[in-house]
Structures are given as C-alpha cells and as structure tokens.
C-alpha cells in the first residue's frame, strides 16, 4: 500500500465511519445530525473565537499526547499523564505565586521549568519502581493518578487556598505572569484574533515541543536508544543501552511533557490553579498518541482533531438540548475506529491496492523474494 494511503486514506475512512455511527446515535436520541455537525464545525472552526478554543484544547492534548507517545517509543505505557499534569499545575502555581516575575516571558520560562520538574518527578517514581523493582508501570501510574489527586486536594485546601475562599483553588496569579493570548500575539501582524478565546502562547511552546520531540526521537542518540530499547530489551542490553537509564529518562521526559501542559490550562487560561484543572486531558493523551501513531506530527494533528471535538461539543451543549455525553460517545467512536478497528479499513484497502498493482504489472517478473518493505 502506498504511503499516502496508509497515512491519509486509512485514518480518513475511519473518521468517516466514526462520523456515520455518531450520526446514528444523534438520530437515535431524536436530534438532527446534519444540524449538529454544522453547529460543531461553525462553532469550532467558523470563527477565530472557535479556533481559539479548539487550539486551546489542542494545546493541552499535544502535551499529553507527546507524553504518552515518547513513552510508547520505549514500550512503556504511561497512563499517568493525568497525575503528572496535575503536579505540573502545582509547579506552575508555586512558580507564579511565590516568585516576583518582572515579565511574562521570564515567568513562562520559570513556570515551564517548574511544571516540567514537577511532572517529571511524579513520573520518576513509577519509572524507578518499574526499572528497579519490576512493578508494573501501568498499574503504578494509575495509582499515582489517584494519589496526585489526593495530594493536590490536600495542598490546595490546606495550604494554597486564600483565606476565606471556598474554592479549593489558589489565588489568582499576579498580572505579570499572565501569558499573551493569540489575540495579543497576532494583533501586531494585523490579524484580529478573538480576544475572548484562551489559546495562548503555550500553543507555540507545544508546537516547539512536537518539533523537539521529533528531533529527539529520530535524530539524537538518546532517541535512537529509546526506540531500540522499545523494540527489544535484550538487544538493547547487548548494545550497552541500560534499561534502567532509558526507563528513567524516558519517563522523566514523558512526565515533564505532561507537566508542561499546565502552562496552558493553569497559567494561560485560568491564571490560577483549580482542583480539576486537568479534566481528563491525560487520558485523552492516550487516544491522541495512538491515533497519531506516536509520531509528533501525528500527535499534533490528532490533538487538533480532539480540540475540535471538544469545542464543537461545547457549542452543541450551548445551543441545543443534546446532552454533553454525546461528545463522550463521539470521542469513543473516533478512538474505536481510528485506533482499534483501523485494520478493518486497512485490510480491504491493502487488497485493493495489491490487485491494482498486480493489474498494472502484467506479468509478475521474477522479482527477488525479499519483500519491498
């Protein structure tokens, strides 16, 4: 099968199948699917305001998607992005609240560092347990999500909550730490981007992270070692690649990326740390990484798709009486068709392409027996 079909056609057909099923569900609850899709598209992509929200969500998913993707390369399944992102939020909050930053740019650097450190630290413990004690990382990271929620709750309620506030949340960060939104960034070049939308400079950080991760995975020795370890632990040992080291480093990078999500939702959007800041973005990251085939570019695109679903779904809930759970169902169908059932699409496509190829080459010459990739 040609590469373009693998990369474009298969996911596209899967998406269409998911869309058809979603439409059936919408019909099933007595609503009009065409109107719903129109509303979603105009709501999410029809204005800079919609784009602003779509990109805001996409930024979150890029970070968590990359978090899961890098771990996948080392054959580690990090389900703990949620907890790592929560701790990242804590790091951002501490950085923004207790350090008097003179300018947002410095604050961004400081907060990013803290977010990454906190997220990385939270991932490092399960990594250590896996590398040294053989504890199953899937389970420890799930447990660490729960523990993170408890720790964050404790700290917010008992330590960071301003006196008299009933919200388990920190105080608002000082103005100097407020990040420029896309409106601020695009105004100088004459684009009038919606002022209300939360998409902010973190989007650029996320895109940079995608690029750096791509370089890391495919252009550096560390990336080479991570992938080698992911493919074969025994071979990695032979080559002098330490499983302990790779497990630790990969999970630290992974947790750091998840933690960095906090510069978007905590620092960029709410400008304070609330209890439920991550809202399951860590779990969406799994779907994003899988759909993006663990490739940073794929993660980028999948994150935007999920951002669209989130924002489109919000618009649906805003203007129709369709329950918000419909979006959960649509997400599920997208994950199912593009992730789990993609062979259902690929197998027949492969056959079609093979027969096309055979039809083109009239007499199969005596080709060497080795397959051509």
């Amino acid at each position, binding site marked *: 099968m040609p590469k373009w079909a693998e990369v474009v056609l298969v996911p596209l057909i899967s998406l269409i199948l998911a869309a058809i099923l979603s439409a059936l569900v919408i019909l099933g609850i007595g609503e009009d699917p065409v109107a719903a899709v129109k509303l979603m598209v105009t709501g999410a992509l029809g204005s800079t305001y919609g784009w602003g929200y779509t990109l805001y969500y996409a930024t979150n998913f890029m970070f968590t998607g990359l978090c899961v993707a890098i771990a996948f390369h080392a054959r580690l399944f990090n389900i703990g992005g949620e907890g790592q992102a929560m701790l990242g939020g804590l790091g951002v909050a501490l950085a923004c609240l207790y350090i008097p930053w003179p300018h947002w740019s410095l604050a961004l650097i400081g907060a990013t560092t803290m977010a990454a450190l906190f997220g990385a630290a939270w991932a490092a413990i399960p990594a250590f347990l896996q590398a040294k004690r053989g504890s199953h990382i899937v389970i420890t990271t799930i447990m660490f999500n729960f523990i993170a929620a408890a720790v964050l709750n404790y700290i917010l309620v008992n330590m960071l909550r301003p006196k008299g506030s009933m919200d388990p949340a920190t105080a608002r960060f000082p103005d100097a730490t407020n990040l420029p939104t896309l409106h601020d960034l695009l105004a100088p070049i004459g684009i009038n981007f919606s002022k209300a939308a939360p998409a902010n400079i973190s989007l650029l950080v996320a895109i940079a992270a995608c690029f750096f991760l791509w370089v890391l995975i495919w252009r550096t020795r560390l990336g080479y070692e991570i992938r080698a370890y992911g493919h074969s632990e025994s*071979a990695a040992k032979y080559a002098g690649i330490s499983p302990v080291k790779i497990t630790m480093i990969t999970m630290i990078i992974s947790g750091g990326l998840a933690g960095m999500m906090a510069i978007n939702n905590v620092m960029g959007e709410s400008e304070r740390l609330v209890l439920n800041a991550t809202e399951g973005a860590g779990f969406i990251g799994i779907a994003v990484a899988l759909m993006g085939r663990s490739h940073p570019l794929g993660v980028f695109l999948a994150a935007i798709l999920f951002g669209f679903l989130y924002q489109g779904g919000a618009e649906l809930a805003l203007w129709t009486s369709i329950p918000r759970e419909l979006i959960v169902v649509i997400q599920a169908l997208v994950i199912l068709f593009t992730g789990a059932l993609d062979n259902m699409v690929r197998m027949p496509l492969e056959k079609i392409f093979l027969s096309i190829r055979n039809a083109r080459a009239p007499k199969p010459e005596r080709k060497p027996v080795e397959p051509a990739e």
Partner: protein
Amino acid sequence: MNDKTDMERQATAAPAIELKGISKAFGPVQANKDISIRVMPGTIHGIIGENGAGKSTLMSILYGFYKADKGEIFISGEKTDIPDSQAAIAAGIGMVFQHFKLVENFTVLENIILGAEDGRLLKPSLAKARKSLLKLADDYGLKVDPDALIQDIGVGMQQRVEILKALYRQADILILDEPTGVLTPAEADQLFRILGRLRSEGKTIILITHKLREIMDITDTVSVMRRGEMTATVKTTETSPAELAELMVGRKVLLRVDKAPAQPRDVVLDIHGLRVVDEKGVERLRGIDLQVRAGEILGVAGVAGNGQSELLEVLGGYQTGTGSVQVKGQALDLTGKQSDGQSRRNHGIAHVPEDRQREGLIMDYHAWENTAFGYHKDPSYRSGILMNNAAIKADTVEKMERFDVRPPNPKLAAKNFSGGNQQKIVLAREIERNPDLLLIGQPTRGVDIGAIEFIHQQIVALRDQGKAILLVSVELEEILALSDRVAVMFDGQIMGVRDAADTDEKELGLMMAGITDADAKIGG
C-alpha cells in the same frame, strides 16, 4: 517444472503425499510458485534451499498452518482439503516447526495432550498420555520427563516433545523443519537413528535442512528449492553435495574452509577464575581459565546450555561475574557498575551475538540503523548533538557492498532480510570495526550454504590480520573447520583445550559429554 523422474514413476504404491501446483503469496512476496512434489511412503524425503526459498511455507501449507492461494493436496492418492491444522492431523500429518510451537510454562505432558485431549476433563487425558509416552519412549528411545516444564528443558529435549506430540497423534507423515539447527552432534545422530526407525515402520518423513551431510546420510530422495520454486528432485544416491549446493545457490560453492596455518602472537584475552551466577542463583560459569592470542581462532565447543552463552555475555559486558578478565593487559570490569556493552567496545572488543534476532539486531530498525547499533555513540556517526544519519547510511551502503548483503538496500527493515543476510549485516558491523578481539557466537546458525562459505572466509580473513577470535558454536564441524585451538565446555567448566589439528569429532564429542581424557582412556 521438474522432470518427473524415473524413480517416482517406477514406484507402484500411491505417493504418501502429492502436492500439485501450490502457490502462495504473502502480500507482495511470492513465497511458493506453482510447486509440485511427490513423496513416496516409507521414505525420508529431504528438502534443501537457501534462506527464504519457501521451504517452511510449503510445509506449513501441507500442515494447514497457511492456506495456499492455489494448488491441490493428495494424501495417499486421495485429494484432501487441508484448511487448518486439525485437518492435517486428521490426515495423519505431524509437523515439527523450525520454531517450536510449545507452551513454555506448561509441562511436557500438557503440551502433548494440548488439542488432542480425550474428553473435557484433563485428568484422564493426562493419565492416558503418560502411559503412551512411556510406550513411545520404549519404542523409539524418546525419553522425556513428562512433568518437566518446557522452559526448564533444553532445546534438544523440546524437539523430542514436538516429535512425541506428532507420534501421540498417530502421525504417519512427519515433517521436520531444520531439526538439527539446535542440536549437538550426538543429539543429531540420535535423532537420525529415531528417524530411521520410524522409516522402517513405514512412516513417511520430510526433512528440511541446510546441512548437505545430513541429506546425504539419511534421505532417500531430495528436492531443491530456490526463490519459491522447486528446481529439482533427485535420488540421494545419484547426487553429490557439490551438485546439490550448486542447485541450491545457482553457482559453484566451496565446501571447505581454505585457511593457512595460524600465526599466534601475544595474548589478547586472558581469563582467570571467571564465575557467573545467574538471576535464579544458579552458577553458570564455575571458574573459567582461557587465553586467546592475536592471530588465532579459539573455538569453544559444547552442548548448548553449558555456559557458552554466559561466557559471551559476561565478556560482552551485559552479564555480571567475578574473577579476572584482561584484554591486552587491561582489566575489564565485571561488576556491571562501570561497564556495559559500550565500554567493551571501547576496549576494542566486537561481539557477534548468538541470537541475531534477539540481540544483534533491532528487527524493526532499518539496515542502516542497525549498522550503527552499539556504535551509535561513535564520533564518526555524530554531528554536534545529533546523529549523522547521512554518514551512517553511506557507511552502510559500503558495508553492504563489501559483505554482499542482498538486497543492498539500507532502508529495508532488518526483519525483511533473510536470516543469512541478517547475519551478514551483524558481521559487517562488527568485523569492519577492526576489533582486537572478536567474540562470535553461532555464526552460521540457520544460514544457507552460500552465506556460510562467505562468513567463514571473513572470519579467517580477520584472523589473518592478526586479530584474536573467540568462536562459540554448537556445530562441531564448524568448530573443527575454523578453529586453530578448541576448548570444550561442560557444565560451566573448561574440560580441556586441544589443537584443532590434533583432535577429532570423537574426542571432542566425549569431552562435550563431560568425559575427561582420563575417563575416556579408562573407558576406551
């Protein structure tokens, strides 16, 4: 198509197996092309061919593991449909695969009854199988411990279990796919005695092997496959190894290693009192002393599992041990704390591991990425903090050319090369490093004749450049052909070291069985 020769026409009985026009494609790969073959009952029929020629595929079709795209199967003259293995078993076919199909953490008995249980409960089935097993053991000398776990027994034993599985299912036709690849000479001999015995009872046997000696020794007829096609079927008595080799490879091949006498110089590798205890606490190496000099090949012979693997691993830096190992006078760290595969390479040690697919290569990496494997930190492969992929690719193209890797495409994933070519990629990587010491394990396991010849030449050439070579192989023939001196390992110890010129298979075989000179003399 091959000429339907005389012999088959003369036969009066219907062939036990007849395949007609079998074709099979895996995606774009045409593994079998219009193959026809007849196998007479009560004979041993050999099939030879290069790696990837399609031998295993053809047999798997006969056994119902794969479905042929085209073609017909006749069993004892009757057209038989074999859509799955169940049908094959019902037709009296049993198969021992190249890669055993055993459940590792089941007992021997459980593996034997799997799929052939009597009734829904296990107890009666197990009891019955235990009885038949005893009888089969008596009849054919196939002794196994029915309660041992597969993961705890050696490969030779595992193969027995596979054969017993087939016999327990009352197979009349037995297919063996490269059965001797993992066996010691003694085990192989025993296997052939058993096969002879089975033939004499009227069973039909198909034997796939790369070893021409085995073909000549035991088969009645032999078919040659090349690139998915059947190129010839001949009577064994009417052919010669040289002819078969030529039919296989499509050109003349040299069947012996041509080498000048060694000119050993300084000691490069000096091992004293080396001990290794594995994770389970079992002592795998129990005080090894060995020296390898520059310009010589030291062959380590032994039945698999007697510590050779651990020896290579500890020297290669990914197993911990105690004792002293010096390379060119410098001590190696054996604790695993300051050392790993990387530091060994810095010491000028190159290592061709025993299992190329599990250790030597990343099967999903491109050939060029595998060329850098283990040397990915080499300065020449680096530009700044990034890897210099262009340099690696260029290097790969050169190496592929020098080692005649086919196809010479650096972008092909390692898993898409045949076994022989995979081995050449590993060899190219390690030999071209110009190491002071080359560790090399099972260099030609599962490799076809054409490639073996080439690989042996490369090893000898490296020796002639004055490098020290430690060769581990379970093929005695290979050890004797390549080595200048031979050490025999048994139960984690060195039983003795001999000059290759002064010893023979018989003596080494005894030592491999743990019988020392003294014993041998008393016994003999």
